[in-house]
């Protein structure tokens, strides 16, 4: 085996001498392992759409990079960290996978980080949201692409205050995530000159939000912040609609809302909701062109997670193309050196803590009258510069930054 490796190495050195810059691709193939939720809670925001998005990135390269074919394997992690760890480990050990992609749900991303660290592989995180992925839990080869809870919360918090929403009331899911989100946003609201009038905790998960909404209504706050996610957010927004909260002049700020949630709620219910997004399909010609192609394949417009998966895979392949190697350290160094330039991000910077810093957008859900048809849901109110959304590198607590 060793002899074979040596032979292969010397052969590649010879080849390089001969042609100047020939491929140095391990096993002669660039293999990407995509782990996502195909059947559960996150299958709409991530799921099969992320596979399509990764395929679209690969197609752009014509299926080969640096002379080697690109292969994509995918699996349903069923939102279970142990299945993800098992699958990722197996891919890395026995199937020569070079990079893991997507990884929605933080517990999954963290489990795969552990595997990636041991096997020295790249992890391209798009779907998971937790900020610790580029703070305490960071690894040198773990790249967090699309967004994080800080950007969502902080983006919405400061932007809403700047728009005049200076008094807040929180509806918070009663567990660590909800509390962390509320704390993050409270800090930003107060720093921006707003004040927090109060908060109420609701059980996780909850289906009846009427009493919490009434409390929020009675608080007289201009903005009701939803420090929860998924089904809870959807139910809370429905309850707000029932009590006519938006019509009465209070605004709802969703801290973790996706385009597919708006699609599920319908404009009539969701109108007026403010949220931070990493991507919206109808921003410029580039995003429209890409999203149309995506729509033709899937029948849905892409979410930020899906667009982010495309961007991360594309940038990874670009770095391989530029270096002619799929060696982890070489590729990561190149990925950091090159700005991320595609329809998802312009001038995106990949920091040493693993954070990909790019602009985020504050959006408001349109009213049915403003919308021209299906998927015409959001109006971009403000572009949030990357540094503001993700915070400076000095703030990161990543030990290897």
């Amino acid at each position, binding site marked *: 085996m060793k002899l074979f490796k040596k032979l292969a190495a010397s052969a590649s050195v010879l080849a390089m001498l001969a042609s100047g810059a020939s491929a140095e691709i391990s096993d002669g193939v660039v293999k990407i392992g995509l782990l996502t939720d195909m059947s559960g809670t996150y299958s709409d925001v991530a799921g099969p759409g992320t596979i399509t998005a990764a395929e679209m990135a690969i197609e752009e390269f014509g299926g080969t990079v640096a002379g080697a074919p690109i292969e994509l394997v995918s699996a349903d992690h069923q939102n*279970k*960290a142990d299945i993800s760890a098992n*699958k990722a*480990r197996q891919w890395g050990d026995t199937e020569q996978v070079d990079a893991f992609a997507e990884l929605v749900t933080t*517990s999954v991303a963290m*489990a795969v980080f552990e595997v990636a660290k041991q096997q020295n592989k790249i992890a391209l995180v798009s779907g998971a949201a*937790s900020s*610790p992925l580029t703070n305490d839990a960071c690894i040198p080869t773990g790249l967090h692409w699309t967004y994080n809870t800080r950007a969502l919360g902080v983006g919405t918090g400061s932007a809403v205050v700047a728009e005049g929403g200076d008094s807040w009331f929180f509806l918070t899911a*009663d*567990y660590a995530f909800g509390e962390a989100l509320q704390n993050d946003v409270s800090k930003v609201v107060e720093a921006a000159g707003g004040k927090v009038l109060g908060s109420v905790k609701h059980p996780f998960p909850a289906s009846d939000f009427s009493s919490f909404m009434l409390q929020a209504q009675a608080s007289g706050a201009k903005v009701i912040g939803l420090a929860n996610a998924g089904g809870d957010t959807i139910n809370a927004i429905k309850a707000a609609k029932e009590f006519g909260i938006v019509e009465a002049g209070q605004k709802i700020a969703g801290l973790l809302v996706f385009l597919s949630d708006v699609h599920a709620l319908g404009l009539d219910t969701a109108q007026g909701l403010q949220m931070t997004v990493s991507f919206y399909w109808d921003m410029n010609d580039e995003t429209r062109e890409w999203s149309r192609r995506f729509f033709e394949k899937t029948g849905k417009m892409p979410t930020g997670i899906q667009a982010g998966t495309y961007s991360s895979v594309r940038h990874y392949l670009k770095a391989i193309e530029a270096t002619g190697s799929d060696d982890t350290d070489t590729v990561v160094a190149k990925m950091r050196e090159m700005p991320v330039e595609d329809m998802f991000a312009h001038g995106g910077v990949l920091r040493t803590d693993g954070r990909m810093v790019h602009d985020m957008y504050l959006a408001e859900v349109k009213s049915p009258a403003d919308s021209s048809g299906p998927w015409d849901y959001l109006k971009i109110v403000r572009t949030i510069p990357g540094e503001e959304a993700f915070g400076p590198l000095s703030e990161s607590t990543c030990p290897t930054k």
Partner: protein
Amino acid sequence: MNKFLGYLIVLALALAAPLVIYPVFLMKLLCFALFASAFNLILGYGGLLSFGHAAFFGGAAYISGHALKVWGLPTELGILVGALSAGVLGLAIGTLAIRRQGIYFAMITLAMAQMAYFVFISSPFTGGENGLQGVPRGTALGLIDLTNDRAMYYFVLAICLAGFLLIARAVHSPFGQVLSAIRDNEDRARSLGYDIERYKLLAFVLSATLAGLAGATKTVVFQLASLTDAHWHMSGEVVLMTLLGGLGTIAGPAVGAGIIVTLQNYLASGPLAAWVPVVLGVIFVTCVLSFRRGVVGELREFLRRSF
């Protein structure tokens, strides 16, 4: 003699398996086989349908994870602490639950397990939604490096075999016989002078401890403990494994666990990826409707009738 030969063949297969099959997958299979066998001890032999076994599995997973990561205990001790804590939790839940029968017993265990789940989701030491990650594997007896998957496999195999042997011993002992008697006719067992509450409680605690042993071992294998382990889905999954393999048989739960874990693992990256829960559901319905004794139970019945 025949039986002995059978055990030898199974043991030889288990020893040779990692040469052919991916060891981490095999370890997961073993852990779930032990979990299902522990569950079968009270459902199959004691007739008690617990709907809260995830609390023991997940609880032990968290506690041994914490013991290994934060307290820095040696691997064996960490697993032991996890299993024992599951036993203590089993004693607490069992004392309350065994006073009731049937559906009430199931509901009490479910309610208790949900309370445990709530504690796990809101305690800082479990990492909440993110799970407890990066648990070190350490060394076995301070000698063998467990970061090697092969070594880890044999370590897990030894633990699980010990667990299986304990269960088999318990089932075939006088204690197991009394337990079966209680299952079949509680009043008659009581009239014979047996203190049935004591027997039930002992079986419950033993089952909880072994479920905990499985959970703790799994934490070491995957180096993580997550909410999945403590969620009520897990309690349901273990019922499914036991019924599918064969209720009240020694090998049944292990076979059932093997089927479920294999399906979860291999369907995940095929064309059926989005359909894993549906496939499992269809299998369960088919099993309950057409072969109620489970795979091993039906096989045993077939052999009994044919010979």
